[in-house]
Structures are given as C-alpha cells and as structure tokens.
C-alpha cells in the first residue's frame, strides 16, 4: 500500500518565510530611519538587526510584525541616543557627504531632545502622521504633537536665523 504523504509547513518554516519577507520589505527603510536618528551606519544596522532578532523571537506573539519592528527600531534608537547623551555628551559627526543644508539640519536635529528628534524624523522623513507616531513610540497623541511642534519650532528658529 502506498503510504499517504501529507505535506505541511512547519511553524519554523513559516516563521522563516515571514521574517524574510519582512526583511525584504522593511530592512533598508529601517536602516535609513535609524541612520537618520543615530547618524551612524554601523550602529543603525546593528540596532535594526537586533530588532529583527527580537521580532523573530516573538513572532508567535505578535500580530503585526511590521509595526512591531518599527516600534522596536525606534525604541532602540531612542535608548542609543539617550545613552549617548549620558556619556559625556558625545555628539555624532554629521554623516559624510551631506550637502551643506542637510548638514545644518543634522546639526540642529542632533541638539533636539530625543523625543522631539524622533517625532520630527518619523513625521518628515518617515511620513507618519502624529497618531501613527504616537502608536510607534507608545506615547500619548497630544504629547507626540507637542514634541512635533516644539521640535519643528526649534528647527525653524535655528535654521531660519
């Protein structure tokens, strides 16, 4: 008698597929976002890869890996910025090869408090709305809007004078 063969996709294989799809869709964008926040390519990649590992570890529990990944990346960037500020106020060098305008923006951006910086980058680089930023950063919407307003006001003040 011929043995009946049943093909199944194991959870492990499903996970791998999901993760790879996520990588293909999100990796480059997340590295750019992280780079815009921390200003260092190696660190940005490290943070994003760390986030992917976390997503992989919790894939069983999370419903929206993409959203989780974004939050994880931003959260890691925030921690990194905070650490950096604590450690002797070390400021990253502007990324090489920037046009002077962008260089100027980078300089001001780097002086913003982490929350404002994250809000501004997510809004004006990531294109997220305030409510989405609030969700990504797990911050109340009004607080997020306040970070946005203040961050933008500082940028305007510094860049337009």
């Amino acid at each position, binding site marked *: 008698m011929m043995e009946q063969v049943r093909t199944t996709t194991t959870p492990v294989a499903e996970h791998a597929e999901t993760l790879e799809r996520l990588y293909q869709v999100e990796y480059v964008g997340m590295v750019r976002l992280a780079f815009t926040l921390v200003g260092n390519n190696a660190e940005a990649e490290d943070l994003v890869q760390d986030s992917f590992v976390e997503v992989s570890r919790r894939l069983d529990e999370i419903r929206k890996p993409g959203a989780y990944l974004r939050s994880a990346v931003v959260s890691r960037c925030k921690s990194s910025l905070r650490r950096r500020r604590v450690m002797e106020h070390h400021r990253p060098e502007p990324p090489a090869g920037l046009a002077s305008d*962008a260089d100027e923006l980078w300089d001001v951006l780097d002086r913003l408090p982490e929350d404002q910086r994250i809000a501004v980058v997510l809004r004006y680089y990531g294109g997220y709305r*305030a409510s989405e930023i609030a969700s990504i950063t797990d911050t109340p919407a009004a607080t997020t809007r306040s970070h946005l307003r203040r961050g933008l006001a500082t940028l305007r003040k510094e860049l337009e004078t």
Partner: protein
Amino acid sequence: MSKFTERVEHDLSQIADRATPSSTAWESIQQRIAEQTTQPTVEVIMLNPDQKKPPTVSRTWMAVAAALILVVGIGALIAVLNQDDGGEIDTVDIPEETVPLSLEADEEPDVIVPDEPDEVAVIPDDESTNSAAVAEPEEPLEMTGFAVGDCNFGAEDTTPDDLNYTTTQSCKFRENNVVPFETIQQYVFTRYDDPEFHDGSTVPFTPITGLSDSGFMYAGYMWDGQPSAHARFVGVAEGVGPYEGELIYVSGRSFGDEGGVVHMQWAVGEELSSLRINGTDVEAVEVTPDCEFTGVVEDDDADPQTEHYTSQCTAPDGGVDSFDIFLFGPEANTLGIGSHRYVVATGSMVRSGLVPRSGGPTLSLAIMEGTGEDEGLLLHQLSTGTITVEGDISETVVQVALPPAE
C-alpha cells in the same frame, strides 16, 4: 506644506540616503537568530547545605503569608467600616472597557488605554442634586483661580409634559479674581432631568442664564447616552466682551452606582491656551477640521428622538480622522443641542456636541475622551455660522462653518 517643512523633508531624505545597508545583513540576522536559539540551557541543581535545618525559604514564605493575611484582614475591616459609613466611598472614573496595559509594540491599539484616572473629588450624586440642597465636596477641588461657588439649589419643578424636572441652581463664585469670572458674580441655571434619573439618561442641553451686572454665561450638560458614563458641564461666556462665545468652563462628570464624580476644568482666553484640567495646565490643541456631512445614521442605542449625523472631518496632524455628531432630531430644527458620543478614530476618541447660544451662532465642541493624558482636552471648538435644517430629517443638511476671522 510650508517651504520650511519641505526643506526639512528634503534634508532628512538626503541624510537618510547616506545610509548604506549591508548586502550581507540577512545573513547577519540569521546568524544572530541562530546564536540566540542555540544558547545552551544549563540545569542548575541547588543543594541544600544542611538538611536538618528548616529551609530559610519556608520561613520567609511563612512570614510573607502572615503579612498577607494581616493586610487582607485590615482591608476587610476597612471595607466593613466604610460600608457602615453611609457608603461614602471615593469613586473613580473607570473606563468601561479596559485592555491590557502592557501593549506589545506590534499591537496598534484600537483605542488608547486611558491612563489612571485623574484625582477626583466626590460630589453628591445626581439624584441628590435633583432634590434639596447639596453638600460641599469632602475635599476642595484642586483648581487655580476658579472655585465653584456656594450653591443653593432651588426648588424642583416639573415641566408640563411631566417628563422633566427643572432644577434651578444659584451659585455665587467664591473668588472672582480671574477673568472673566470677575465679571460674573453669580449664575443661575435651570436643568432638565429625567424625573427618575438613571445612568445614561439623555438630557437635552440645558441653557443657563447667568446674571450679573456685566455678563453672564450659558452652560449646560452634555450627556453621554451610555450608562455609567460621562457628562460634561460646559459654560460659554455671553455678554462678557472679549470673551464672548468663549468656552470658559468645562467639568467632567461620571455617574456610577456611588454617585457623581467630577473633575473640574476651565478655560480662559481667546485661543484657549490656558485650558486647565484638574488645575494642571495642558496644551490646547487647535484643530480646524474640514468637515463633510455624510448622512444620518440609525443608532439603536441613542435616544429615540436622536438622529445620529456623521460628519467626516479631516484634522491634519490632529490625530483624529473623523468625529461624529449627534443631533436631536426635533431640537435640530431649533438649534437644539446634540448629544455626543464616543468616536474611535485612529486611536483617539472624541466626544462632540453642539451648544446653542441665545441669538448667536451655535458652538460646536469636541472633547478628547478616553485618551489618557489628553483626557478632557478641548480638541476642537468652532462657532457654527449656520446650521441649516432643510426638509425631511433624513435629508438634513448640516453646514458647519468657521466663524469669520476678526
């Protein structure tokens, strides 16, 4: 989008373009995952060095258990004492629906979990306000500059249709050193309640005629139709010069089994920049929604005479995509108040309603609800130039217009 924000976008994009994602990143990730999953697990067997001695852990647990029993006992005793104390137990504003506070990062919550309720003071429940006098709250409300006046409640009266109570309240402001209250010496309001007031009673907006030499205010309740939910008491300045039409007073109130709970808020200023919630300055958010009326919605939960009008509004960067407005059908023809409801929109909730004013434009208000830190925040206020009701209610057109710029 302004030139400046365009520049910010452009420059940020230039910065991001400098990132150079590694071509071997996927391999790195896989390697990291593999390293993590192959971490050896070590079973550690803890040896008890001296079997004869009773384990210290047991002693600790016994101590903990004894402490717990003591705490529970004291708690029970307090509860019993409180019950005997006429049921005067502090109540707090508990959200009807709760979701786990520890949200996973991937979970984009349908609603933002409200923070812990603000500290509130207990005031007499609403039934008691329908009858006789009202006692002062046990704890004075934390407010800066504005305190509820000494209130004496007038006699109850019954309206001709026997459906409503009319309660007249006369209040005198205790402190009048804050504009515009310095011009409002006292106010009187008439309130209409369901004679058998119950949670969720939907009561039309109640005009208040405040009397003073130089000004008065209109105020009233905005009720939620849901049980055990909130009501808003709003006051709009009338005849007070520069504050004309301003929302000058808002208080929130919820009604549960233990009576009403109130938290006080007030607002002064043309731009509502000093809106306060529970005595704490908060930032007023200016939103100018671009509204498009989308029709009448049947809502079984609403008051039978209420039509639910949906206005889809866009609020740029306001975190709210749309809000709904309730209007009472019959009252809509006479610029009556609409009730209000919770609307979930992109993680935020808005309660909105319309406040009619005598001889003036109707004021439309939207107040954040269930949004934790934003709780009670006036999100949107606009005077409506016109509310036109034409033809059959199902074809009603509601025009919402911004007041003319001064």
